[in-house]
């Protein structure tokens, strides 16, 4: 029983990362009906930005030499802002130009894939292949709760994922901008006629999704402190699958899908030979999709990509 609870904690932490990335996929898809395949690499950019910002602040020879607590408090918002900028730049440079020219959505999706590769290999060319490690920003302490080991960092990660989920839900459901986002996904062509600035809604969506990925990237770099250019590829890919299983386009779906994937992965590794982890995990997800092709929370739509 203890073992099972410990695995649940592990799954909650791992699922938080999937959920944070899947939320970005689902936001962009929900508004633009576009699968932003570069999103996993935006997550990687977030992790690297956190590395640069925190080292700049912490470095004793640098102009700041801040204490850890202050560095952490500054790094979180700065990472989110800069990652948002990266996401918005991508939209501005790659996707918008294509969409303006009336390209079919498929071409934009392929462009997104290529942008992801450009980000990965650009990073490789710029920073070299050697791994980076995030400086320690939070003194880690391990708590033992009835035989279950939890660290303060893990609690923060889970809390962050839950808070982001509720914040997003609030933004989409209750604010004017959220209403505009829902309107874009409803009918992109009628929207400008109503006097809603389409471009700023799209920019806002990308900024929001990328900012969350930036937060995820930073927390990821704190939990798994070995950074490499391809770190976002596999994780981002799996998070996309999580978003689809949850029902892409739905915020609850991305959140639930992220945790579901992590639970399946961890439990398969925990109770079956770990060699079969991905095989079983994805077979189970396949079965779910087979039963519900639009995902757990998804609604049937007439046109997908």
């Amino acid at each position: 029983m203890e073992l099972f609870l410990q695995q649940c904690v592990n799954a909650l932490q791992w699922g938080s990362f999937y959920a944070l990335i899947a939320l970005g996929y689902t936001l962009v898809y929900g508004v633009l009906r576009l699968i932003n395949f570069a999103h996993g690499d935006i997550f990687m950019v977030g992790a690297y930005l956190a590395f640069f910002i925190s080292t700049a602040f912490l470095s004793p020879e640098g102009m700041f030499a801040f204490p850890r607590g202050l560095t952490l408090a500054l790094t979180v918002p700065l990472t989110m802002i800069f990652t948002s900028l990266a996401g918005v730049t991508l939209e501005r440079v790659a996707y918008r130009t294509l969409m303006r020219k009336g390209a079919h959505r498929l071409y934009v999706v392929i462009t997104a894939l290529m942008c992801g590769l450009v980000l990965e290999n650009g990073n490789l060319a710029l920073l070299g292949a050697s791994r980076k490690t995030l400086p320690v920003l939070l003194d880690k302490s391990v708590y033992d709760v009835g035989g279950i080991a939890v660290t303060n960092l893990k609690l923060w990660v889970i809390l962050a994922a839950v808070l982001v989920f509720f914040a997003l839900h609030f933004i989409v459901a209750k604010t004017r901008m959220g209403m505009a986002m829902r309107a874009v996904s409803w009918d992109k062509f009628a929207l400008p006629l109503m006097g809603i600035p389409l471009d700023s809604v799209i920019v806002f969506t990308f900024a929001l999704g990328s900012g969350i990925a930036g937060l995820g990237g930073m927390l990821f770099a704190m939990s798994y402190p070995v950074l490499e250019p391809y770190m976002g590829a596999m994780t981002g890919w799996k998070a996309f699958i999580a978003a689809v299983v949850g029902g892409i386009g739905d915020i609850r779906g991305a959140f639930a899908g992220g945790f579901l994937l992590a639970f399946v992965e961890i439990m398969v590794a925990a109770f079956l030979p770990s060699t079969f982890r991905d095989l079983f995990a994805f077979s189970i997800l396949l079965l779910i999709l087979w039963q519900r092709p639009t995902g757990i929370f998804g609604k049937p739509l007439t046109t997908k990509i």
Partner: protein
Amino acid sequence: MVKRARAIALICVAMLSMSGGALAGQTIKIGFPIPLTGEIPKVGESTKFAAELFREEVNARGGLDVGGKKYPLEFIFEDNESKPETAVNVTLKLIDRDDVLAIVGPQSSRQAVPAGAVANDSETPMITPWSTNPDATKDRPWVFRAAFLDPFQAPVAADFATKEFKAQKAAVLFEISNDYSKGLADNFRDAWEERHGRGSVVAFESHGPKDQDFSAQLTKMIAAKPDFIFLPENYSFVALIVPQARDLGYRGSFMGSDAWGSAELMKLCGDACKGQFFSTHYAAAGARGATKEFIDKYHKKYGYVPDDIAALTWDAVALVSDAIQKAGRLENNTGKMRKLIRDNLASVKSFNGITGDMRFDSQGDPVKCAVIVAIDDKGDFTFRESVCPK
């Protein structure tokens, strides 16, 4: 028509004479298919640095002395991206396009095993400095290595852990898609069960090549209450696994293998790896003689202490250049020259390298000693003991 045929013939002659000219060879070409990017970039860097050091030293003397004539060394470095398929491609490229006389590399068994097949089929001598999986050289007369084998390394680790940790129960975590990691894990399990009886390996878990979270496997392993955890893993995984095990409340020891010994391990792993042990090819701290000389030269040029990969690469390159010198002449025909080098490599009776004395057995594998290294409080790799084959 006649004109065209003549033109073609002329071009052919020109090409032949050009390639002949390259062979008659003002230079001696050696190819390095090494991991400059990918999972283990530091390994590629160490290889390149050590090889460059060797080349500069030889070329400063005017080149390698073969039968009274001096030929400068020319090294061609190709990136194998730490991938088996790329390793095969670049090895082929070096053999067919660049016409190298010999191959040094790839380093990790994951790339050396498939690349060895290519080199053997194309009858080109290859020597992998760092690969420890038996399959790299097994039944391949053209393939050699400079490192000891996993079937030797595993018992060394098992004996040391039994003595040092007074351990009865071991847990193992390894990377399933890596020939090196998987092979060593299997060998270790056999060695441990031979010493402590069946079931004494209480957990035997694996993970994939891109994994970052190991909490599921580690939770399972820790629940089995092992006396220590054996990690035959690349250093980038070690830096993730050891802290994660600590987060899950594990307080016991870790024992590693030679893939830990990268200069980058302590930078990535930090305090968590201090106090752990691993088996490897040489220990920089406390070295003497030629080894000390090499360490000093390397440190002076690149600013850090060379890891075992650099030392083994140096030995591998030295073995190849010895074999070329022993040939006494440089054949114009690449195939013939390659054959000469192979024969000379196969007949090495004993070689005094900077990673210790070695001789080759019938499979092209060296018989040499292993070293157990402890990671001290400053993060230095210090010599603990040396274990030689019986």
